[in-house]
């Protein structure tokens, strides 16, 4: 097939419009770069294209449940248990149209549309610390991060000020404070557990409200307003109450007049010029017409998400890079990480029966990492975990004994049930070389591109950590005076945390890593990769804030090192 060459040479191309791509688009266009922003999926305009944002359960014939025919098209996307229903299924891919392969089960949850997963993300927003940036060096897993906290701290400040993060300052070295908007509040039972933990433990553990990318307080954000406590975030928010590319970074990029946004554009490879030792552009397949187009630019930002950006690099083969662009180390596709979670405890609480709350707070509690903060703890696992969770008043299941049917049942089921509380650990997964993704050249998708195969698993360190997650959760709830405390371990499979990371890791040495400390491909410096694939280790914190900060930092580096065509 003959390629159509777009004659214009852009200053920059950004591949992807999610959390990272939105930031790259905003930063590069604001610095005056004429930027082509490519998105493989359809267009989604803020508010206009959130069809379910105001739906109530009774607006759907079956309260939002899908038919077997509909479910059959999203079998893998359904593995989360909460995303595939009438309210949000349209944000997740059709598994039959977009297949992948599993040597070992891997839950690859994704949406192909402008805004990507920034529309459906969990919005928990935490900084990494030097405990995380030095971890690999200390214990020898993976390679050393080429950066430290001081390198990223000002960029955390910068992105937090723009996106809006509500949270409580705690002064913890393992979880640095940020530029916070007023914190959300703990409810009665969460506040009770907080004081019981403070009374019963002297190892530094404490309970706080989650740090979350929602607007609270009086600060003004362009085109956005405060969180309304509807907890319908996953549908897209008409208030712009939480941060998404669609509500925040893409409108900022649009405003500069420097952005050309092209949806339905599947990037198949980065084009490399061996003489110049630079990338010259990207090859795009139009998702609808299947036409191939080559776009040229001086700088390329891959922000397509961990697995997709890694696939694009793997597909970018040339005489110089037989195993994929920038893959001299052989590490491309390896060191795949996710957080392991769904281990913890839940319980009931007798008391506060006369208390309730107003609003559906789209946030829970956070209990920052308290394990292995010092070198001498002698635990049977390394690294650590934090807890997320919360308390709420349950529903009718609580009322079974007193009122099985009739008038009593009708009265019981419209009242708030008893209080329940859950603590769920989110733990660090180590960067294992053998946890990997690769391309299957025999199984192609409908655009003729190879499909991704996963082979990754949790190992001994994660499994031992989970035992502690459960034991400590049970212990805290018991000491908090809760009843029916039940520990649980529902490990699922890697991917379910929807925090894929590490397959094009940063490092100091080109022999053992794909990217340098500025997110540049070691040997192709005009290609930056700033989604989760750069993560050298995982930490136990939700990672999106780090992608945003590193993207802004990389864009600043690119602006200083690559000329605009009109400059």
């Amino acid at each position: 097939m003959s390629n159509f060459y777009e004659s214009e040479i852009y200053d920059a191309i950004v591949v992807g419009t999610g959390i990272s791509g939105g930031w790259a688009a905003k930063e590069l266009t604001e610095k005056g770069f004429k930027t082509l922003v490519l998105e493989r999926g359809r267009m989604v305009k803020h508010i206009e294209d959130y069809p379910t944002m105001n739906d109530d359960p009774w607006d759907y014939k079956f309260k939002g449940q899908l038919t077997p025919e509909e479910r059959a098209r999203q079998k893998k996307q359904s593995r989360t248990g909460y995303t595939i229903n009438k309210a949000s299924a349209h944000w997740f891919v059709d598994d039959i149209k977009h297949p992948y392969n599993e040597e070992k089960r891997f839950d690859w949850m994704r949406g192909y549309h402008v805004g990507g997963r920034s529309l459906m993300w969990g919005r928990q927003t935490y900084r990494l610390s030097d405990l995380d940036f030095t971890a690999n060096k200390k214990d020898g897993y993976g390679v050393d991060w080429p950066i430290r906290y001081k390198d990223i701290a000002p960029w955390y400040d910068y992105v937090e000020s723009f996106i809006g993060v509500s949270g409580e300052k705690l002064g913890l070295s393992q979880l640095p404070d940020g530029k916070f908007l007023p914190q959300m509040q703990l409810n009665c039972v969460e506040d009770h557990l907080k004081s019981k933990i403070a009374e019963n433990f002297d190892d530094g553990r404490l309970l706080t409200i989650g740090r979350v990318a929602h607007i609270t307080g009086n600060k003004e954000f362009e085109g956005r307003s405060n969180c309304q406590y509807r907890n319908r975030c996953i549908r897209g928010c008409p208030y712009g109450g939480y941060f998404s590319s669609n509500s925040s970074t893409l409108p900022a990029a649009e405003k500069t007049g420097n952005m050309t946004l092209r949806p339905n554009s599947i990037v198949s490879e980065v084009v490399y010029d061996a003489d110049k030792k630079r990338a010259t552009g990207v090859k795009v397949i139009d998702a609808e017409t299947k036409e191939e187009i080559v776009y040229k630019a001086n700088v390329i930002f891959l922000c397509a998400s961990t697995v997709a950006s890694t696939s694009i690099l793997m597909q970018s083969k040339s005489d110089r890079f037989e195993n994929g662009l920038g893959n001299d180390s052989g590490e491309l596709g390896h060191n795949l990480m996710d957080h392991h979670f769904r281990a913890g405890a839940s319980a009931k609480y007798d008391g506060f029966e006369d208390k309730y709350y107003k609003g559906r707070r789209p946030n829970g509690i956070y209990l920052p990492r308290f394990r292995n903060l010092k070198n001498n703890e002698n635990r049977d696992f390394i690294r650590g975990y934090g807890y997320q969770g919360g308390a709420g008043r349950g529903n009718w299941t609580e009322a079974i004994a007193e009122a099985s049917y009739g008038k009593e049942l009708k009265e019981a089921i419209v009242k708030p049930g008893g209080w329940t509380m859950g603590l769920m650990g989110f733990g660090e997964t180590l960067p294992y070389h053998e946890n990997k993704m690769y391309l299957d050249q025999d199984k192609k998708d409908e655009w003729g591109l190879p499909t991704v195969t996963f082979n990754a698993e949790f190992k001994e360190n994660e499994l031992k950590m989970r035992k502690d997650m459960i034991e400590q959760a049970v212990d805290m709830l018991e000491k908090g005076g809760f009843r029916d405390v039940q520990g649980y371990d529902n490990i699922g499979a890697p991917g379910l945390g929807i925090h894929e990371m590490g397959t094009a890791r940063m490092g100091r040495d080109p022999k053992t890593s794909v990217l340098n400390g500025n997110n540049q491909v070691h040997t192709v410096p005009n290609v930056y990769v700033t989604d989760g694939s750069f993560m050298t280790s995982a930490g136990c914190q939700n990672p999106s804030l780090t992608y945003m900060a590193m993207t802004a930092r990389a864009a600043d580096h690119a602006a200083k090192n690559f000329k605009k065509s009109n400059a």
Partner: protein
Amino acid sequence: MNRRQALRNLGLGAGAIIIGPTTLNLLQSCKSDAQHTWKPVFLSASNGFALKQILEVILPKTDTPGAEDLNIAEFIDSYMNEIVSEDRKQNFNESANAFSRAFKNEFNKEEAEGTAEEYEQIVGKYLKATPAEKEKIVKRNTETQDPQDKDPGIEIDPDAGSLAYLQEVRGLAIWAYKTSEEIGENVMWYDPIPGEYIPCGSIDDLGGGKAMSL
């Protein structure tokens, strides 16, 4: 009374108009006819009649609408038809048939001939059983059926099947009831745009003692 309280009361008032006494009488007068003439899409006609009778016991009309007003039998029937897996369809049908046999054992007549009083009695027999009694009933089925080698020719135990059926119908009915527009907007605390979070307030002040419907 503050503005918010006034608005909430207005909301409840508007709901009450919809189910005013005239409407209720109308619904009652044609109820028994409707139950006999209803043609379910999934269940057999007699199991459909029984389902309506069971739902009248579980969610009767009181000062708030009941199962019949909210078309809950129709909802469950089409839910089984259009949404659930083949396995669950089959189980639901088999347990509905088991209930039918249990009804005959109990009253020596077909379920389609049953009276409201008889349905009240048989629903109570199973749903008001003590946990120990329920355990005994469930056990009866596992003794006659090998779950590894489920012979489609063997009918499930009427008591075990009835208990399973009534528990499932009850769960579905509560779900359908609470997520119906009438109950969700006018009986429970409907607050689609809270606008704020009050973390720990008096249950009576906040929702008038009602749970949030969303």
